[in-house]
């Protein structure tokens, strides 16, 4: 049995979990009352239902009892799986209906008028109330959900919108039932008059209550907005604490080391910018995002600042990846030999992608590149050549250096607008 068993030792009354009867959402036919009682008492739900139907036929006592339980027992939302599926539920309904019909026929044969003047209207009204109450269960549930996560605010609106047909049906049933009950006792005209009077009274009450309801509604909305603001502020505070404050602490500790301070500040700046202005894209998917992530890495390793200016973007593939790797090597080379500020310009044109890496270092004579600049020659030239691209170096002593990478693209079909 799924019920909690009291612990055998020591039987502290404070520690024992309180067992409350609840109505069950899962596996319910109407309000979940029968299932809730059945689970609470460890009875079979079918017999509980039969008992309620029988009681209902005894002068409507079962209906009143069911309504009372519905009103008082809270709805439980635990999604514990229910053993029997909807098919068996349907069979249960059919069985109960057959039983009810049998009892009615039995009573009728004994000369007791079951379908008396008041039974059908009462059943109509009862059905209406049941529809309305069940609707209110659903709406409350969606409100609870929307409070759990403020982003689910739409759920409430959607639930309310979906609720309107059901509310209308329930109200119509209730009005129809009331009208039927009135008509059964007198002439139709008088009952119509009575109904009109009742509706008028209801409208009056609604009018009186309207300001209170609206006020309550506004308060609830304001409270929700305030909560969202608080959540946003908490998110910003968390971000600032995790990033800026931490970095400022690190900077104070590294105050004696200008390179380290620059590196920390630059890294933090980059992270903060990405958070504030939203990233360009997924580094695994586009060229510019991939370059950004590589450059951030190089900046973290070397004391340099890299300015990336992109025009256009393309999706990543093997050839673009080779271009990214070559560009990274070029930036690393500039960072090692020149330092300072390095400009990276990427232009994704119609039929080629070009990357320019420019530094403002001492420069060199490209004709007389010493062998120790193998990095540039091998990693950059060879990488580009393998994917059908080119790499050229332009430099002169005292003028810095610029590496140009060109990757021809077929038809430019992969260009991202």
């Amino acid at each position, binding site marked *: 049995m799924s019920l909690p068993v009291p612990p055998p030792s020591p039987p502290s009354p404070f520690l024992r979990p309180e067992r409350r009867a609840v109505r069950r959402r899962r596996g319910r036919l109407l309000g979940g009352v029968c299932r809730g009682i059945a689970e609470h008492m460890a009875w079979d739900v079918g017999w509980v239902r039969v008992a309620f139907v029988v009681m209902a036929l005894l002068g409507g006592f079962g209906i009143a009892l069911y309504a009372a339980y519905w009103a008082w027992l809270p709805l439980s939302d635990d999604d514990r799986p229910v053993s029997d599926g909807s098919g068996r539920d349907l069979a249960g309904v059919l069985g109960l209906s057959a039983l009810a019909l049998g009892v009615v026929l039995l009573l009728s044969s004994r000369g007791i008028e079951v379908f008396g003047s008041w039974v059908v209207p009462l059943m109509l009204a009862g059905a209406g109330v049941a529809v309305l109450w069940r609707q209110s269960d659903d709406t409350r549930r969606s409100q609870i959900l929307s409070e759990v996560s403020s982003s689910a605010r739409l759920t409430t609106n959607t639930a309310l919108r979906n609720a309107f047909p059901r509310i209308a049906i329930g109200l119509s049933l209730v009005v129809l039932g009331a009208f039927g009950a009135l008509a059964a006792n007198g002439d139709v005209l008088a009952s119509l008059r009575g109904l009109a009077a009742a509706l008028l009274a209801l409208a009056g009450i609604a009018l009186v209550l309207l300001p209170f309801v609206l006020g309550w509604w506004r308060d609830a909305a304001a409270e929700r907005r305030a909560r969202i603001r608080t959540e946003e502020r908490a998110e910003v505070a968390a971000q600032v604490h995790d990033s800026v404050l931490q970095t400022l602490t690190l900077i104070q500790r590294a105050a004696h080391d200008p390179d380290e301070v620059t590196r920390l500040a630059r890294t933090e700046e980059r992270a903060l910018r990405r958070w504030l202005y939203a990233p360009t894209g997924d580094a695994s998917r586009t060229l510019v995002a991939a370059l950004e992530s590589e450059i951030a890495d190089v900046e973290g390793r070397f004391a340099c600042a890299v*300015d990336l*200016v992109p*025009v256009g973007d393309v999706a990543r593939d093997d050839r673009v990846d080779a271009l990214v790797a070559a560009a990274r090597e070029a930036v690393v080379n500039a960072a090692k030999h020149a330092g300072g*500020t390095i*400009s990276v*310009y990427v*232009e994704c044109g119609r039929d080629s992608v070009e990357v320019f890496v*420019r530094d403002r270092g001492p420069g060199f004579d490209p004709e007389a590149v010493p062998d120790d600049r193998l990095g540039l020659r091998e990693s950059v030239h060879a990488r580009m050549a393998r994917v059908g691209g080119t790499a050229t170096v332009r430099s002169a002593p005292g003028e810095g250096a610029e590496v140009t990478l060109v990757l021809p693209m077929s038809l430019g079909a992969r260009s991202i*607008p």
Partner: protein
Amino acid sequence: MTDQPSSVGPLRVVLVDDHQMFRSGVRAELGGRVDVVGEAGDTDEAIAVIHRQRPDVVLLDVHLPGGGGRAVLDACTADLPAVRFLALSVSDAADDVIGVVRGGARGYVTKNISGDDLVDAIRRVADGDAVFSPRLAGFVLDAFSSGADDPLEVEGLDQLSPREREVMRLIARGYTYREVARDLVLSVKTVETHVSAVLRKLQLSNRHELARWAAARHLV
């Protein structure tokens, strides 16, 4: 070119930024090479100081309490056509940059610019030329790029000329005006003319790509 005798004595500059620390930092970096005649920390203050001092150049922060740099531009450019504005920003957000440039600023530089480059930029703006950072050049190329090869599109406000495009590309690559001039075998003055023409197109063009592009960038 200038309406005031700015060649006589150092350039008169007003600093507008809501961070006192940043203002004093810039003042120190400028180091007497220009005459800082006023400072302001918000839009109202800025408008008052600029009208009172009538400086040659206003260094204008894009983000300011009370409406931003754009509000200062809107309040000053009509009354004081001789005052030039150079936008300074930490923001890379395209709509900020395009906003102040279209509002009348003659250039845009990021706040990590070196003191020498800033003095250079101030001089250039005071002379009526435009100052483009690599990033602004990138923005321009991006905004004017679509339909560039369309032969039906007549060159005009909505189109960069091939030369202007070349100049913009070099600036985006990090070249100084002098380096651009040498690379394209032009005079520095011609490069300045091209950049000013691009600035005018950026300010006046109704090219729908410009708006659409900025909006798209904002959303991304």
